[in-house]
């Protein structure tokens, strides 16, 4: 009797061994440790934490190690783990005004309370290779400032808000618990909590492109960076049995608030409008892109036209998720031969019928062929 040859299962298992071998690379080169990735590839870890929607630097570093530095694959590992974690509650709202500042710059004021704090940034470097990094053993020794930073630094939109010039951020009626898009399906039009949540976990490159499109003219946003700040913020939680807030620890955040062209109406005097971005770790590009797109997505709320991709919530929210996008794009690698056979059968038949028809026409009008 004849049976189908089945090599599939063994071949699949072999791919697991092969990828492990490829991940390790040349065994003569020392293996990288998770701690090294966490400490020395912190910006990559931040991106994995953002797109994986989980603040855990060690797991982000492990994910990067396991994924050979593939950020989307690493984010996927984070999410598949995150989905198994219990939700024991929501934290208290974070107070970013009380952030322990590492960096804080404003483009709208020359100087302001708390001052401009440049902090660690590539912004003012020349992009020239530092070949000394080819060798190990380099240690940086930054100088301490003469005086400590101010304990609290007012946020720029709050300064504008005190003058009534900035669109106020009011919690929705009853201040409900924010939507959780990992637990419930999103419907459209999506509210702002859903939009911000989706963008915070969205692909940095996608949001960067959309934010850029808005600046270039595919959307009417003309923003100023009110402020970008990076630093540590305490996360507080109120356990039901205690009834008061306890400190769960600090997380590093980047917050960006863009000041956009004003809006006004018969009843409301003109005010600047706000674009908001908040992400894990030091991720200025992501926070800025997010705040550009946040403002663009407010178009409908302000009665503006929504002609461009960045202004359409369905477009932005559905396509910003890189783990979903990568899955669907890459599923094209799966076998599709059954459907393709359907297409082959159809195209061959249509071509055959066309040839027969042409041949008949030829016979019917022999002189036309001459």
């Amino acid at each position, binding site marked *: *009797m*004849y*049976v*189908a*040859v*089945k090599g*599939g*299962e063994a*071949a*699949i298992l072999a791919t697991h061994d092969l990828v492990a071998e490829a991940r390790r690379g040349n065994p003569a080169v020392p293996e990288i440790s998770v701690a090294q990735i966490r400490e020395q590839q912190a910006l990559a870890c931040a991106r994995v934490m953002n797109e994986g929607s989980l603040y855990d630097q060690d797991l982000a570093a492990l994910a990067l190690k396991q994924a050979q530095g593939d950020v989307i694959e690493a984010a*996927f590992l984070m*999410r*598949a*783990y*995150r*989905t*198994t*974690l*219990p939700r024991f509650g929501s934290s208290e709202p974070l107070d970013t005004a009380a952030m322990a500042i590492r960096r804080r710059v404003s483009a709208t004021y020359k100087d302001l309370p708390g001052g401009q704090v440049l902090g660690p940034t590539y912004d003012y470097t020349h992009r020239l290779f530092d070949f000394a990094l080819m060798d190990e053993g380099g240690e940086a020794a930054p100088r301490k400032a003469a005086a400590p930073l101010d304990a609290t630094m007012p946020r720029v939109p709050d300064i504008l808000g005190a003058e009534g010039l900035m669109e106020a951020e009011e919690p929705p009626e009853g201040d409900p618990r924010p939507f959780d898009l*990992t*637990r*419930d*399906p*999103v*419907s*459209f*039009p999506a509210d702002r909590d859903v939009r911000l949540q989706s963008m915070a976990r969205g692909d940095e490159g996608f949001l960067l492109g959309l934010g850029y499109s808005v600046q270039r003219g595919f959307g009417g946003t003309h923003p100023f960076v009110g402020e970008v700040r990076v630093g540590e913020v305490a996360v507080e939680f109120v356990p039901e049995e205690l009834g008061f807030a306890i400190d769960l620890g600090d997380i590093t955040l980047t917050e960006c608030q863009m000041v956009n062209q004003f809006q006004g109406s018969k009843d409301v005097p003109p005010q600047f409008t706000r674009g908001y971005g908040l992400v894990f770790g030091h991720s200025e590009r992501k926070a800025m892109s997010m705040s550009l797109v946040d403002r663009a997505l407010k178009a409908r709320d302000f009665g503006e036209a929504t002609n461009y991709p960045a202004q359409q919530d*369905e477009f932005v929210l*559905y396509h910003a998720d890189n*783990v*979903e996008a*990568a*899955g*669907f*794009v*890459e*599923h094209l690698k*799966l*076998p*599709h*031969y*059954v*459907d393709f*056979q*359907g*297409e*082959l*059968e*159809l195209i061959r038949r*249509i071509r055959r*019928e066309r040839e027969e028809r042409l041949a008949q026409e030829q016979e019917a009008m022999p002189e036309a062929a001459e």
Partner: protein
Amino acid sequence: MTIHQMPADDTKPAYNYAYLDEQTKRMIRRALLKAVAVPGYQVPFGSREMPLARGWGTGGIQITAAIIGPADTLKVIDQGADDTTNAVSIRKFFERTADARTCEATDEATIIQTRHRIPEAPLKPGQVMVYQVPMPEPLRRLEPREAETRKMHAWAEYGLMQVKLYEDIARYGEITKTYDYPVKVNGRYVMAPSPIPKFDNPKMHMSPSLQLFGAGREKRIYALPPYTSVRSLDFEDHPFRIQSWKQPCGLCGAADSYLDEVVIDDQGGRMFVCSDSHYCETRRAEGHRGAMLGDAAASGLVEETTP
């Protein structure tokens, strides 16, 4: 409890039975009940992030995880075959997380999870088909916005689809949809049958089995209860018709099954074989011989075993 904390016999971390936590399974079952109550209607559900990639069957996997129990026997097919990479991977997932009893025989299975095919052997009452669905919205290619397509379904406004099918006929002489061919369910909702070839559409009509559809990435579940009317959209003067082949299966000689084309050389040589691997094997075991069975053994497609 996290996988770090969950105690097990050997204190190794462990996942819940069939991976999903029980709250999530209940949520999915509620969505399934609603879907069964309104055949063909797409029920939004809180699709979870799965350890397999989106677009690789996470909707079907979540449904199977929510309905499977120790008494079930699971068959997983992709392209009709039990040994395609994705089918193997999903079967292993349930063997690992649900200690599932698996099989390849269509009539032994209580749950059949599938991508792109319905088995050739008729399904029986009590069997559950679970379809993996990439694009649950049949109108999506005509209208990209979900907010609009939901309204179109609510109003049963399917004119756009009829126009699309008509335009196909005007341009090519026939409807050019060969898979994921739209159907009307119970005289009400237009539904995407998932990318099964239209050859399989008639098998859905009045099927004695329960048919469940899961789209994980798009976060939708829909269903066909047993004995539901499923009509492939067509026109009186252009009736629906299924694919046909000029020759029978090269291995088992079946003339009634969906055939895959296998390229056997670079001289234009082709062999047509059943896409339903179990159907084909069963027929060969019964003594049916296709014209190319010997050649197939020579090219390593099948193996001759001594009884």
